[in-house]
């Protein structure tokens, strides 16, 4: 089950693409899979590999040397890798996305002058747009990816995507940001303020319109004015911003970029993964691989195990007696031994139910990319480089 004919191509994906984006719904192990893929690439090939993570578990972040946030790329020292039994041919770097700082950088870059930049950064609306706008994390992740790629410092960038309500939200993010700041609606909304000057009074003919009357009644005039002021400032960054958003989108569509969808074999995440695979293809992105994570081992499906379990279910006592005969010092108490044997059989049956469900879901997968990789449920948490290396072996097996 593990590896299979597709596995060689996962290696090819990591060897030939410049960007691999890992996505999937929450809780499926996206972050560790992305980190493992980067480690595997740095192990197998020469060159510089960077993994950008969004919100790693604390222990995994520590293992990657990412104690603090900040858009700093850190190299994982070779001696750390060697201590974990990894002989890397390339260099592995890791970075954690700092949403706030990335936004600030963006404003500082695109604002026409420093004064405007700080007027934007100090506006309380700014904080809300950047920290609460559902798409803003998604957008900034892609923007940061573009930024790093443009430096040309890395042969391969592996990026983890932020947890979103919907796994494909981030794909629309650059376009939505462009639409958002370039939209007619925004112009319309800020028009009374635009005509009256930045802080000026409203023109009567605009304020007389039903929409503004209604908005005033619900929200109060000051509120709309606050918003308008923010957008008028933000608008000065418009052209730079739009260009940038379009460039980000081009990069994601570029043939150097590929996507890997991670999922577990559970109903809801799998449905989302399937939907995502279809959407990626429909929108002209390159769907590189589907990673089935945390799957139960195939031996749970085997006839041999089921037969052995049914023997224990009916005849644990005589098996226990025989064990006592063969190893009296190890297993002296046949009653206890029989109980343990029955528990083993029952547990096998339990996990077989789940494994069968997984196998059925897998068989039903409507659309599969060429590369499908299976990673088994590993026994402990993935908290260190050894753990990542273990996943990496399954990715490339």
């Amino acid at each position, binding site marked *: 089950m593990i590896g299979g004919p597709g596995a060689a191509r996962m290696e090819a994906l990591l060897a030939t693409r410049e960007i691999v984006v890992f996505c999937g*719904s*929450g*809780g*499926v192990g996206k972050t560790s899979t992305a980190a493992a893929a980067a480690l595997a690439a740095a192990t197998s090939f020469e060159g510089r590999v960077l993994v950008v993570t969004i919100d790693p*578990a*604390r*222990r995994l972040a520590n293992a990657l040397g990412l104690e603090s946030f900040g858009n700093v790329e850190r190299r994982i020292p070779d001696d750390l890798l060697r201590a974990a039994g990894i002989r890397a041919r390339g260099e592995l770097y890791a970075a954690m996305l700092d949403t706030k700082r990335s936004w600030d950088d963006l404003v500082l870059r695109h604002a026409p002058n420093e004064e405007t930049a700080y007027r934007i950064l100090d506006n309380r*609306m700014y904080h*809300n*747009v950047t920290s*609460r*706008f559902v798409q803003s994390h998604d957008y900034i992740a892609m923007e940061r990816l573009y930024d790093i790629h443009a430096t040309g410092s890395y042969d391969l960038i592996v990026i983890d995507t932020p*947890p979103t*309500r919907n796994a494909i939200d981030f794909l629309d993010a650059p376009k939505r940001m462009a639409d*958002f700041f370039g*939209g007619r*609606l*925004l112009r319309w*909304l800020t028009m009374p303020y635009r005509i009256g000057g930045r802080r000026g009074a409203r023109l009567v003919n605009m304020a007389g319109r039903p*929409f503004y009357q209604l*908005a005033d*009644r619900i*929200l*109060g005039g*000051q*509120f*709309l004015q606050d*918003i308008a002021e*923010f957008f008028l400032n933000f608008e000065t960054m418009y052209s730079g911003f739009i260009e940038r958003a379009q460039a980000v989108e081009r990069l994601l569509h570029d043939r150097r970029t590929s996507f890997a969808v991670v999922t577990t074999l559970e*109903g809801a995440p799998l449905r989302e993964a399937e939907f995502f695979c279809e959407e990626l293809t429909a929108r002209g992105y390159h769907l590189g691989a589907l990673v089935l994570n945390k799957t139960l081992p195939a*031996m*749970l499906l*085997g006839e*041999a*195990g*089921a037969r*052995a379990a049914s*023997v224990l279910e009916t005849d644990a006592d005589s*098996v226990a007696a*025989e*064990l006592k005969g*063969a190893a009296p010092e*190890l*297993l002296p108490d046949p009653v*206890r*031994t029989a*109980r*343990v044997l029955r*528990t*083993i059989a029952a*547990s*096998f*049956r*339990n*996990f077989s139910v789940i494994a069968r*469900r997984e196998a059925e879901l897998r068989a039903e997968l409507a659309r599969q990319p060429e590369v499908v990789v299976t990673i088994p449920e590993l*026994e*402990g*948490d993935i*908290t260190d480089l050894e753990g990542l290396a273990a996943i990496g072996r399954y990715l490339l097996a």
Partner: protein
Amino acid sequence: MRTSAAPDLLGRRLLFFTGKGGVGKSTVTAATALLAAQRGQRVLLVEVDAKGNLTRLFERPPVGFDPVEVFPGVFAMQMNTEASLREYLRLNLRVPVLGRLGPLAGALDFVATAAPGVKEILTVGKVCWEARESIEGRADWDLIVVDAAATGHVVAQLDAPRAIRELVQAGPIRGQTEWMVDLLSDPAVTALNVVTSPEEMPVNETIELVERVRQELTVPLGAVVVNRVLPELFTRDDQAVFDALRGPEATAVLERILGLGAVALLDAARLAVSLRRTRAAHLAELRAAVDLPLLYLPYLFVRDHGLRVTRMVADRLGEELGL
């Protein structure tokens, strides 16, 4: 640290459930609604995320903004901020909305994007409104159960009335936020519950969320529901027997009697033991860090997730609540 008394969750009027993606938040929410309905309550079940999956748990098609009975006594609705705004305008401002909501809804999207809590207030406001109407006898929900935003967004969601009050200096909305804050802060009415599973990230997020809620919100916390708890296979003494069985001598005997399947059985049991052990460590961490009632729901070894599973979870939840 642990409060042992079972919390009187079903005695409140308004229950929110949050949790990290993938822990079974919706299943637990649906099961709570089902449990309450089985005990004779009339329940409004609100899905906030626009995923439309909640009614699957009752094996019913998706629902809209108007509540539909998906199980005897459980009425499900899907939150929709535009519908909520329309209702608000009709009921509170007597504004004729027909023909005008088009551009207003679009503008609202913009405003909601920039301003904290506008979108959220339409969600929380609707839910609070149903709760208040019920308390004052104008609506007949005994219980309102909300499948709320995930841990990352729930604080912003529940903080919406306060955020709006800070932002909007005048107008009817400001006045509306006062009673909402009161209702959301009342421990006799409201409880925010966190669903988690005994794994690293869900446990970390739960601990962080509980701290944040206490610092930033006045919403009372109810219980932490720990979902998918794996069974303990062996006592300490039985574990010693299991270890002996895995030794070469005993394994050889087992293989002779049981055939090749013996190894599969032993390996499967070892996987079960170590999965349980890893999770137990996370559970211990959770128990040490969170002084809220903990409710445990077992990992279910079942084929599929439908009404049957929702019932099973409801049964176990009832036991944990001492019902």
